[in-house]
């Protein structure tokens, strides 16, 4: 089984982003970028499947700007076998990504496309589902456990108040939730070795996909700042505040 693992380059989760002063978006220039944390989880899971003998090859793919090759190098250092970089604009929208992935699926013929449930920059949570729709493949989203049983994929899904297990025929789409695993480090020896692993670069246009934007961002604003708390001295004071200031009782 070949596994295709899309990985996205996003602003590192440690960085507190800020809204551009003109409100058109979030400032990303000069910020540390890393692999989307959900994608680290899918790389890990795919590599584990290969290590267990359930998969034969793990192909990491990233769609974005040239620097996304750093993200792919990380995937290679974590254990992916080879990488494909599809050059396009920065952070293309989910439908464009799904179409590009569909084209790659037709070329690479994987039996599993393993995506993060969402990217932490725009939190869209759409690409996996769209790709399943475009390909007409079954999907197991929000996976917290994935097992290959008699040629089918058993996927435990995180749903409100519990888990649901679905059994998928292959080929299939799976999107990972946070609890699926704890990804390994890209260790220094493996980063060094990853430099020698193959990486192919394509243009989005070469795949014959129209990536024109359909979404418009109207405005972006910071969440309102929370007012500092106050310390009260007595219950009576609390009741007074709740009644007269907060007007909740």
């Amino acid at each position, binding site marked *: 089984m070949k596994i295709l693992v899309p990985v996205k380059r996003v602003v590192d989760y440690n960085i507190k982003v800020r809204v551009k002063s003109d409100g058109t978006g979030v400032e990303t220039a000069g910020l540390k970028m*890393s692999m989307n944390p959900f994608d680290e989880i899918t790389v890990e899971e795919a590599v584990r499947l290969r290590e267990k003998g359930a998969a034969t090859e793990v192909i990491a793919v990233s769609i974005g700007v040239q620097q996304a090759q750093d993200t792919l190098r990380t995937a290679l250092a974590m254990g992916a076998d080879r990488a494909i970089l599809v050059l396009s604009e920065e952070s293309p929208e989910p439908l464009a990504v799904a179409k590009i992935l569909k084209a790659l699926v037709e070329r690479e013929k994987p039996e599993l496309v393993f995506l993060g449930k969402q990217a932490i920059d725009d939190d869209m949570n759409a690409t996996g589902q769209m790709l399943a729709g475009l390909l007409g493949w079954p999907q197991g989203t929000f996976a917290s456990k994935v097992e290959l049983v008699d040629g089918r994929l058993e996927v435990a899904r995180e749903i409100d108040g519990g888990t649901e297990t679905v059994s998928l025929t292959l080929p299939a789409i799976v999107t990972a939730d946070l609890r699926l695993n*704890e*990804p390994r480090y890209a260790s*220094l*020896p493996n980063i*060094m070795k990853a430099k020698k692993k193959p990486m192919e670069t394509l243009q989005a246009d070469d795949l014959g996909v129209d990536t024109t934007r359909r979404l418009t961002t109207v405005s972006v604003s910071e969440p309102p700042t929370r007012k500092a708390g106050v310390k009260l001295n007595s219950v009576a004071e609390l009741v007074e505040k709740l009644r007269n200031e907060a007007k909740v009782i």
Partner: protein
Amino acid sequence: MSEREAMDFDVVIVGGGPAGLAAAIRMRQLAPEATVCLIEKGSEIGAHIVSGAVIEPRALEELLPDWRDLDSPIQTAVSEEEMYFLTETKGHRIPALDRVMPHLANHGNYVVSLGEVCRWLATRAEEMGVEIYPGFAGAEVLIENNRVVGVATGDMGITREGEHGPNYAPGMELRAKYTLFAEGCRGSLTKRVMAHYDLRKGVDPQTYGLGVKEVWEIPPEKHRPGLVMHSFGWPLDDRTYGGAWLYHFGENLVSYGFVTGLDYENTWLSPFDEMQRTKLHPVFRPHFEGGRRLIYGARALSEGGLQSIPRLTFPGGALIGDSAGFLNTPKIKGTHTAMKSGMLAAEAVVEALATDRVEPGSFTQRVRTSWLYEELKSARNVRPAFARWGMKAGALYAGFDAMVLRGKAPWTLHFRHSDNETLQPASLSEPISYPKPDGTVTFDKLSSVFLSNTNHAEDQPVHLHVENMPLWKTVNWDVFRSPESRYCPAGVYEVASQETDPRLVINAQNCVHCKTCDIKDPAQNIDWVTPEGGGGPNYPAGM
């Protein structure tokens, strides 16, 4: 430790600041076939760099003569310069600055984000074939047959209790013919090397300052690109060395910060709060009004100068940049000197490689015959004068030194104390009352640390080793009332149960790697070691 993998290089450089990067570039220029590996503990190059920074392009000019054509982030030329002596309510502007304080004359210099300059230098270095690995800290010096043979990176995935976690990945040995330590001020491996080879024998103790910095974005109509301001005097007393800086640069950005000499005496002093309250002074306040704060960080700098520079080489390597203490304190500039020292060390290493020498000993001679030495020599008496006679008399001496002696005094003033020896007991120190943060111009520590983007993987051993807890109680608490809870600019140290059973709480995940605790702890009971690689602040562009 046999499970560790190893790799051989001609040169390994620990630290990706100006010194390490300049050394790496020089190495490949002079010996294109030499293999050069550079590691950086920050998650990327520049992630741990805090500086002013007004930089002198002198060393860069020598390293990359065509730097102006290389799309550099060195863009804001210094345009105006102001120096103030502050009293609580007034600012007295020093006239004829270029004569009284010629070391502060900044014509031809640039205001930059040093982190960005480092990222740019790193790209040049990689283009030239240097292998750069950010996110990996040098955790151990490898010494065999009394020769440094490289460093090992730290293990990853060790739990808080010190055991191998599920993701444990052993560190790696980076073995080298020559190892250059470019860790900046108070390097943790440099400390080990200095002790092992007794490199500080016969030189003055190093003395340090702590710089606490903020970057602001201000309304365009207020922005005066290239404006450079400094102050001394209020809010520090005459016994305490330090002052503020404020630079306008880039796109509506302001770099503001405050340096406090770590030889301060009053245990109640808080460098963070000195920085905050100085913003309220009428000389500075207008610059912040209507602006927003973007970044916060802190870092110590070496202020000892020439008298405090240790022996520079040892079998298998050398100390460069602020690790050795090459900062020019009266100028408050260490970037050009760090770069120059890295370049000279690379030249010495190339020579040693060719002749298969154990120690790149010609480095010391190369320093002695360069402008770097001349510069530090003429600056050598200024900082010790402040240490001896206080700020006002020290400033007078500095003026006398500049105008009459022209840095050629026939004497050399020495430092008598290490910074950990200068603190006065709480009972003898006068309490300081700092104003409460107003949330628009001044802020508290925690909301500040948030803007350093610092992070350490939670489940790992505490990287601030308090060697002896009972000693903390009898010295730090009983005598000094926990100075670390005030000097630490990141709120790492807190004292719990002060009334009943005082205990030191260490919030190690907040640490911004400034190194102050390692320097100032009275009993030298705190040892800063590298946490898991990639941990620490993530300073963005602009810092």
